[in-house]
C-alpha cells in the first residue's frame, strides 16, 4: 500500500503547511488494514471499527426511514387518500418516526462520530469499556432487527409516540414488538453514554484539562448525561405499555382504572430530552467545523461549553410543553411554558457565539463549513418557531398541526442531519484516509439546503392554516402547499443520495488524505489518517488551549 501524500491531489484546497512541521509518513498499518475478514470486524473492540459498524447500521436505517418519507410525501401530493390505504399510511409515518428517531437520529452522531473521535480528541487509546462498546452495537442491531421484523410482519400504527390508550388497547398492530425494539435499543444508548462519561472523566491526555476539551467533547458529555438519566424512563414506560397490552394491568386505560395522560408525562420526560440527544452532538460538530474553517477559537468557549450542560439540565424540565392542551392543569402549563422559554436562551447564545467566531476570522467555504452555516440558519428557524410552540395561547392553535411537524424537522433534519453530514465530511479524511470530491460535496450541500427549505417551510403555513398532522387525506385547499413540500422532498432525497454515492466512491478512488488536510487543531489531527489501532504512536501531551489557531500571546479580549 502506498502512502503518498503531497501536492497534485484534487479535493479541498490544501494550503501548504505553514511552518511545515515535518509530517511523518503515515504508518503502513492502520486500523482499517490491520486485519481483514468478517470476524475481525464483528469481534473488534476498536472504537474506530465499532464506529464504522454503527455507520453501516445507521445508514441502512436512514435510507429505510427515508423510503417511508418518500411514500408519505407521494401520498400527500393529492388531497384524497389514493396511493395507499389509511392503515398503510398510518404505518408509514409510524415506522418513519420510530426508525428515524430511535435508530438514526439518536445514535447517529454519538455512536458514529463520537465513538470514533472522543478517544482521539482526548488522546486516549480507546474508550473506557471497549467490549461494552461492541456490546452496545450488538444491542442496537438486535433492536433494529426487532423493528425490521415489525416492518415485514405488518408494521405498527400507533405513531412513534405510542400514545395510550390507543397503543395499549385499541391498535391491532405489532405494538409489543415495536416497543421491545425501542426498549432494547435504549440499552445501547445507555451503554454508549456511560462509556463516554467514564472516558471523558478518566482518560484525558496529560495537560488536557476540562476547559481545554474540544466543544465536541463537551457536547457529548452533556448528551451522555441525558442518555444515561433519560433512557431508563422511556424503557420502563414502553415496558408498562407492553404490560398493559398483554396482561391488562390498569396503568393508562381509564377502563382499567388507568390515566392516559400519565403516559404522555412519562413518554415526554424522555422524549423531549431526546431532542437534545439529537441536537447537542450536532452543535458539537458545528463548533469544531466553525473553529477550523474560520481558523479561530470559538468565541466565548466557556459559555458555549456551559450552555450545553444548561440545555441538558433544563431540557429535563420542559416535557409538559408537549401537553398544553392534553388536559394537564393550566398552571402546570404555565410552569412548563416558562421553563421552555428559558431553555431557548442557551441555544440562542450558541448561535450568537458561532456567528461572532466568524468575525475577523479566516473563513473558507469547504463542504463541512457549508453544512455548518446551513445548520446555523436552519437551527435558528427551528429554534425561533419553538418559541411559537412554547407560547401557551398560540400553541393551542398550532400544536398537533403541520406547524409542529415543520418545527421539529427544522431541528432534527435541518439541525441534527446537517450537523451529521457536516461532521461526516469534516472527518471523512481521518476516518477513511481519503479525500472526497469537494465540488460534488458542495453541490450536494447546497441541494440539501434548498430541498430542505422547500420541503418544510410550506408546512409552517400549512400548520397555521390548520392542517392536522398524521392526516392521510386532507381538504383540497391545502394541496398547493403539500405539492410544494413533496417537490422539495424529492430534491432533498437527491441531496441525500449524492453523498452516499461519492463518499463510497472516494473510499476507493479518492485521493489519499494527509494527517491534517484542513490544517485543523485538535489531537485527532495529529495522528495519521487513518489512525493506527492504538490511535497515537506516543501518548500526546496537551499544552495549549482548544482551537489555538494562533500563538496564545496574541490572544486578546475585546
Amino acid at each position, binding site marked *: 500500500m502506498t502512502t503518498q501524500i503531497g501536492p497534485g491531489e484534487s479535493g479541498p484546497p490544501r494550503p501548504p503547511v505553514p511552518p511545515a512541521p515535518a509530517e511523518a509518513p503515515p504508518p503502513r498499518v492502520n486500523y482499517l488494514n490491520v486485519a481483514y475478514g468478517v470476524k475481525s470486524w464483528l469481534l473488534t473492540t476498536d472504537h474506530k471499527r465499532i464506529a464504522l459498524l454503527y455507520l453501516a447500521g445507521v445508514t441502512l436505517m436512514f435510507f429505510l426511514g427515508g423510503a417511508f418519507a418518500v411514500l408519505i410525501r407521494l401520498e400527500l401530493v393529492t388531497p384524497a387518500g389514493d396511493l395507499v390505504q389509511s392503515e398503510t399510511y398510518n404505518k408509514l409515518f409510524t415506522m418513519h418516526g420510530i426508525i428515524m428517531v430511535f435508530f438514526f437520529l439518536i445514535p447517529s452522531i454519538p455512536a458514529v462520530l463520537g465513538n470514533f473521535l472522543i478517544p482521539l480528541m482526548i488522546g486516549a487509546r480507546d474508550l473506557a469499556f471497549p467490549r461494552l462498546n461492541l456490546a452496545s452495537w450488538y444491542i442496537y442491531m438486535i433492536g433494529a432487527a426487532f423493528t425490521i421484523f415489525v416492518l415485514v410482519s405488518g408494521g405498527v400504527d400507533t405513531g412513534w409516540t405510542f400514545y395510550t390508550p390507543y397503543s395499549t388497547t385499541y391498535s391491532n398492530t405489532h405494538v409489543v414488538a415495536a416497543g421491545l425494539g425501542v426498549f432494547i435499543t435504549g440499552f445501547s444508548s445507555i451503554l454508549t453514554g456511560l462509556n463516554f462519561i467514564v472516558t471523558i472523566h478518566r482518560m484525558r491526555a496529560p495537560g488536557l484539562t476540562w476547559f481545554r476539551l474540544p466543544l465536541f467533547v463537551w457536547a457529548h458529555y452533556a448528551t451522555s448525561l441525558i442518555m444515561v438519566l433519560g433512557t431508563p424512563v422511556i424503557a420502563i414506560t414502553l415496558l408498562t405499555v407492553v404490560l398493559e397490552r398483554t396482561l391488562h394491568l390498569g396503568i393508562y386505560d381509564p377502563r382499567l382504572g388507568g390515566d392516559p395522560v400519565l403516559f404522555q408525562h412519562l413518554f415526554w420526560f424522555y422524549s423531549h430530552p431526546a431532542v437534545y440527544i439529537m441536537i447537542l452532538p450536532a452543535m458539537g460538530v458545528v463548533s469544531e467545523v466553525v473553529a477550523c474553517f474560520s481558523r479561530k477559537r470559538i468565541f466565548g468557549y466557556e459559555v458555549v461549553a456551559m450552555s450545553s450542560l444548561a440545555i441538558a439540565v433544563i431540557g429535563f424540565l420542559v416535557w409538559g410543553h408537549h401537553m398544553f392542551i392534553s388536559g394537564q392543569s393550566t398552571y402546570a402549563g404555565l410552569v412548563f411554558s416558562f421553563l421552555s422559554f428559558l431553555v431557548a436562551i442557551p441555544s440562542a447564545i450558541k448561535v450568537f*457565539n458561532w456567528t461572532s467566531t466568524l468575525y475577523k476570522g479566516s473563513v473558507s467555504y469547504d463542504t463541512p463549513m457549508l453544512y455548518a452555516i446551513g445548520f446555523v440558519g436552519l437551527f435558528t428557524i427551528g429554534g425561533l418557531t419553538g418559541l411559537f410552540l412554547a407560547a401557551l395561547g398560540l400553541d393551542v392553535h398550532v400544536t398537533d398541526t403541520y406547524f409542529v411537524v415543520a418545527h421539529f424537522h427544522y431541528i432534527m433534519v435541518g439541525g441534527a442531519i446537517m450537523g451529521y453530514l457536516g461532521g461526516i465530511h469534516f472527518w471523512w479524511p481521518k476516518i477513511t484516509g481519503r479525500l472526497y470530491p469537494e465540488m460534488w460535496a458542495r453541490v450536494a450541500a447546497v441541494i440539501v439546503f434548498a430541498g430542505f427549505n422547500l420541503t418544510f417551510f410550506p408546512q409552517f403555513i400549512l400548520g397555521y392554516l390548520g392542517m392536522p398532522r398524521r392526516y392521510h387525506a386532507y381538504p*383540497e385547499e391545502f394541496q398547493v402547499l403539500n405539492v410544494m413540500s413533496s417537490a422539495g422532498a424529492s430534491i432533498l432525497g437527491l441531496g441525500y443520495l449524492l453523498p452516499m454515492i461519492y463518499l463510497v466512491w472516494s473510499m476507493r478512488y479518492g485521493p489519499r488524505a494527509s494527517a491534517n488536510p484542513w490544517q485543523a487543531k485538535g489531537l485527532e489531527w495529529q495522528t495519521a489518517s487513518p489512525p493506527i489501532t492504538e490511535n497515537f504512536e506516543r501518548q500526546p501531551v496537551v499544552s495549549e488551549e482548544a482551537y489555538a489557531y494562533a500563538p496564545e500571546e496574541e490572544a486578546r479580549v475585546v
Partner: protein
Amino acid sequence: MGTELPLFPVPASTMAGRVDALYLFLILVSVFFGVLIATLVVSFAIRFRRRSPDERPRPIHGSTVLELTWTLIPLGIVMVIFLWGAEVFFAMARVPPASMDIYVVGKRWMWKTQHMTGQREINELHVPVGVPVKLTLTSEDVIHSFFVPAFRMKKDVVPGRYVTTWFQATRTGTYHLFCAEYCGTKHSGMIGTVTVMEPAAFQTWLAGGATGTSLAAAGERLFQDLACITCHRADSEGRGPKLEGVFGHPVTLASGERVTADEAYIRESIVNPAARIVAGFQPVMPTYQGLVSEESLMQLVAYIQSLGGPATAGPGAALASPAPAIASPAAAPRSRGQGR
C-alpha cells in the same frame, strides 16, 4: 383548489384575533433575529473570507459584555412572549359564566354533539353567532382532539374524564372541524363542520331539529330506566344522596374534603362511585362503567344539572329554550344526526 394562497385561516371567534396578534408578533421577532443572524453570518463569511492559505487570524476569546447582551435581550423578549401567551391561554381556559352548554363525545371516528334541548348531531355542530358556547367533551375510546382552526381552538378529548373549553363565534359561516390527536385508522376521516348561524336562524334550526326530548328529559328517563331513582330519592330517604339542588354546589365527602358537584364529579360518581363518597353515605352503589355510554352519561349529568344549581340558566340556556311553535320543520337546516 384556490389560486390565491391564504396565510391565515378565517378568524371567526373572539380568540382568533388575539392568537393572530401574538403570531404576528412572533413572526416579527423571528424575522428580525433570522435576518440579523443571516446578515451577520453572510457578511462575516464574505468580508473575512480566507485570502491566503497561511492566514492566522488573531484569536478573540470572548466578551462578557456581549455574552450578557445576547443573553439578557433575548431573555427579556421571551418573557414578553411568555406572559402574552399565558394571558391568551388563561382567557381560553376561563369559561364565561353565562355560556350555552353543548356536550361532545369523540368516538372512533366521529364527533357526536348534543344540545341541551336534545338535538343531536354527528360530525356537525350548529351554534349561534355572538354567544359564548361551553363545550364539555369526553371520548368513548382513545384520545381525540377537538380542533376548529377558524376559532383557534383545540382541546384534547380524553377518555374517562370531562374536559371543557369554550368559544364565541364572531362570524357566520361553515368551518372545518378536525380531530387533531391521532386516533387510529380513519383519523383523517374524523372531520366535520361547525356552522355558525345568526341567532334567529339558529332558533329556527333548533326548532326544526327538536326531538321533543331535551337532554335533561332524556336523562330523566335513563334515571328511571337504570333504577337510579330507587336510591337517589327526592325525599332524602334513599340509600344514596338526594340529587335535587346538588349541581354546582360544594359537597362534603366522607374524607372530610369538599368538592364542587360539577359535570366531572357527577360523571365519576356514576362510573366509579366509590372514588369520592359523600359524607354520611355507604359505598354501596355499583359501578355503571361499561353499562352507560358516554352520551347517556352526559344526559344523566344534564338531568342532575336540571334538578338544581344556580349556574345553569344563562343566555345560552334561554336561547336553547323551546323555540316558537311557528318554526316549521321544513325550514330546518341539515340535521342528519337526528335520532342516532
